[in-house]
């Protein structure tokens, strides 16, 4: 403990160098945490889904609709407790530069099935009773400066024309994966306006027991196998995962870059630490002469490396955690629930310890093994 002033004095001798080293470690770990969080967020999206919710889509492909009349037949399938349906709308707001998801749902059954969508009770009532109402995520309020009760107009891209909705309710998701930037409106109104086509993009099916999911999914698909629109049914998680896999190799790419970043900064930092250790050869010799043991010198150098690596890591990892939280970052809506997980923070700390070992070990061993006579020969 009494050697702390010595370590501090060593670190403060080249203030700029210490500062730069800590800063570069901090940047490396900030980047590491950010890239890994992209990967974990995508993985979390793929993991989302109530275990007791199934999703039925058209077997021909996700872009093809199903007849809304399927709802009644789905309700009759044994094990099914509730059925709701939704249709992708794909409306554009303003210049369309800021994309957000919007779709039509059967409001009552949909909200009953998604307790994750939390709405103040009075707003929920107002939304359910107004056919031209919209329910929006709280992010959209700040994003566009919308207010409750305001009319907003979307341009339909799939369903042409201007569609005007009144914002009647604002929700907060309890599960971040749901996203807080979605606009939801009444399917009945949608259906009426497109000429009562009676189509639904997908059905959500609430089942009694998650263990029965495969069997129920199969009986649903069997039910419609020979109809004009066969279904493909799976758990909500599988449905979500199919979107997450669409990113292809993005996870791999992020992982690779993360490793490259860590490695690059590690090289540079280790180099700086070794150079500073080399400068102090004479000093180490003096310390040895006045009675410092090899072991003590080894520890001193390692502690110095540890302070640099760990304080850099604390700034970088803590900074990433706080920054993304404070700015409510969601990657233009592509990465809902972007949050640096504790596993990522732990892994980052592990990287910092590895950095400490890699950059401290060689100088520390050199200091411990230094021959006093040799070293002092160079001291002027």
């Amino acid at each position: 403990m009494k050697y702390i002033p010595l370590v501090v004095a060593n670190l403060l001798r080249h203030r700029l160098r210490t500062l730069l080293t800590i800063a570069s470690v901090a940047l490396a770990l900030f980047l590491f945490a950010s890239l890994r969080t992209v990967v974990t967020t995508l993985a979390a999206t793929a993991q989302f889904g109530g275990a007791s919710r199934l999703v039925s889509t058209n077997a021909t492909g996700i872009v093809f609709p199903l007849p809304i009349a399927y709802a009644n037949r789905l309700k009759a399938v044994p094990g099914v407790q509730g059925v709701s349906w939704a249709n992708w709308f794909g409306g554009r707001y303003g210049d369309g530069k800021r994309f957000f998801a919007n779709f039509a749902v059967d409001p009552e059954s949909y909200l009953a099935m998604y307790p994750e969508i939390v709405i103040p009770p009075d707003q929920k009532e107002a939304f359910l009773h107004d056919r031209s109402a919209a329910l929006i995520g709280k992010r959209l309020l700040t994003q566009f400066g919308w207010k409750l009760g305001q009319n907003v107009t979307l341009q339909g891209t799939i369903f042409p024309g201007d569609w005007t909705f009144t914002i009647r309710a604002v929700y907060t998701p309890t599960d971040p994966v749901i996203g807080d930037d979605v606009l939801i409106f009444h399917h009945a109104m949608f259906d009426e306006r497109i000429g009562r086509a009676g189509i639904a993009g997908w059905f959500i099916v609430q089942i009694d027991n998650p263990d029965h999911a495969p069997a129920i999914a199969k009986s649903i698909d069997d039910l419609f196998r020979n109809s004009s629109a066969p279904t493909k049914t799976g758990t909500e998680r599988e449905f979500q995962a199919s979107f997450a896999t669409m990113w292809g190799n993005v996870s791999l790419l992020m992982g690779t870059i993360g490793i490259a970043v860590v490695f690059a900064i590690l090289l540079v930092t280790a180099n700086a630490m070794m150079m500073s250790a080399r400068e102090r050869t004479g000093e180490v010799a003096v310390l040895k002469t006045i009675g410092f043991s090899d072991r003590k010198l080894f520890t001193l150098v390692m502690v110095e490396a540890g302070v640099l690596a760990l304080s850099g890591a604390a700034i970088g990892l803590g900074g990433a955690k706080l920054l993304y939280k404070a700015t409510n970052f969601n990657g233009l809506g592509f990465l809902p629930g972007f949050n640096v997980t504790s596993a990522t923070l732990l892994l980052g700390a592990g990287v910092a310890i590895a950095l400490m070992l890699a950059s401290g070990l060689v100088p520390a061993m050199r200091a411990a093994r230094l021959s006093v006579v040799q070293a002092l020969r160079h001291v002027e």
Partner: protein
Amino acid sequence: MKIPILYNVRSVMQRPFSTALTALGVGLVVAVFIGMLALANGFRVALARTGSAANVLVLRKGADSELSSGLPRDVASMIGASPHVATGPDGRPLVSAEVYVLVPLHKSFDTTQVANVVARGVSDQAWTVRSNVKVVAGQRPASGRAEICVGQRLTSRFPNTGIGETLRFAGRDWTVTCHFTAAGSAFESEIWGENEQFMPVFRGEVFQTITFRLKDAAAFDEAKRALEDDRRMTVDAHRESEFYAQQSQLLGLILGYLAWGITSIMAVGAVFGAINTMYAAIAARSAEIAVLLTIGFKPFSILTSFLVESAIIAAVGGVVGCLLALPINGIVTSTTNWASFSEIAFSFRVTPMLLLSGLIFAVVMGVVGGFFPALRAARLQVIQALR
């Protein structure tokens, strides 16, 4: 008087280990920089090459992608009769009214993964209208039969896409009769069949897009005005090349931001490292520098000399980075283009320009990182240093 560069080269060689570490650090930054831009570049090029400036793509008014559009048959025949449409050698108008849908296909390497692949039902003229499309193996699908032609980039990633095999989608079996290339464009990630075959099994009596060749490529604006002002239809006309380039915008933007964001943070880290290395190098050589100053070299020469030294180390790193990044050129990767919701395969494109900018980037990092240490060297107090 200038200090010879040889001095710097020799100094650098004096401390090979630390130079190598610094250079490698810079090299990795440059490699990531080139790699990410090569990805963004490859994606953009794949879509930019898809369209031709001589073609016009007609969508329903307000539709922002081929998928969301829908056009009735009579619009197709009206456009076919338009005076702006070029005619082929056989005298027929060069128009392709197309059915555009996405079908889920299982991937070869992991059959639990499903990708949305574009199935495009085209007319006979499409193969002429799209001049970059070339059948490389097999025969084009015969009219009236359940046959398809598969884009080259799909063949390695999806099973049952070999010639003579049958691919099942939309509840039917389709015989693969040919493979085609399209100059590396997004068409190579598509399945083409006959529009009249696709229509009944997908969305019924509706086309998604109508593409035609302009009689006079310069007359795009007149053609656009004529179509959009025509009261019999509600359409938007786009220059085909511009339309596909626009489809790449969103993802291109994301990839571009990522590339710049990640590399600039990395670069700052690497510059900090370079500053440390150079300060240490200068501290170790203060006596040497003092001697140089004593024998008459101007402080400015010292400054430039150390800047050059730092730049040399960084340039070596830049070359290393280029070498590291080169092998990724041509690697095929795939992702979903969210603007069209379809999966597109494209290759990393490392261009000479990109390599050059990587090198310049490295040298800039070196010069920035070397500036303050070099300044300190130039301002060295001779008396103190020589003591």
